[in-house]
């Protein structure tokens, strides 16, 4: 989500701009907290399967690290491709 999606925000009176900007900020915070929760859930589900101890073992911990890192890289790549499609700059079929 980026602020540029509200194209006409510049034309607003000062107080509305402030309100809109606050609203966008709060939606972004909410969105990133949800993303955090869903990332934790996904990596936990994929990496943790035994419950014989209370603490993560080494293998689980490194699985979690790779999962989170991989998801973030994936998410960034999706964001780039998505932005290209939004702007109509995507390349023809390959």
């Amino acid at each position: 989500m980026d602020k540029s999606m509200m194209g006409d925000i510049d034309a607003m009176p000062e107080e509305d701009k402030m309100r809109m900007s606050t609203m966008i900020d709060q939606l972004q915070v909410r969105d990133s907290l949800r993303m955090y929760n869903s990332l934790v859930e996904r990596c936990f589900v994929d990496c943790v399967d035994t419950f014989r101890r209370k603490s993560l073992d080494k293998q689980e911990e490194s699985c979690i690290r790779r999962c989170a890192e991989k998801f973030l890289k994936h998410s960034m790549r999706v964001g780039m491709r998505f932005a290209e499609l939004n702007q109509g700059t995507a390349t023809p079929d390959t």
Partner: protein
Amino acid sequence: MAANNAQAAAQAAFEKDQMFGMAANEMEYRVDLFNRLTQTCFNKCIEKRYKEAELNMGENSCIDRCVSKYWQVTNLVGQLLGSNRPPM
């Protein structure tokens, strides 16, 4: 006169609330679309044993095509639903 002004102000405040509500809906829609696309293409393209933290070449090209196809499906379903607005 004063009452008229107050009424007009209330009406203006109401319309502004409406506009902000619509903008919030629009933003939530885009975030929801992006999140579903991200989750779906992760499920379709990423090897779940997480042997390494990097995306490999196969995963990268799968992601690009997945995003592209998902976009097309969004447009196609939009047409079927009779909305002639683009997904964005």
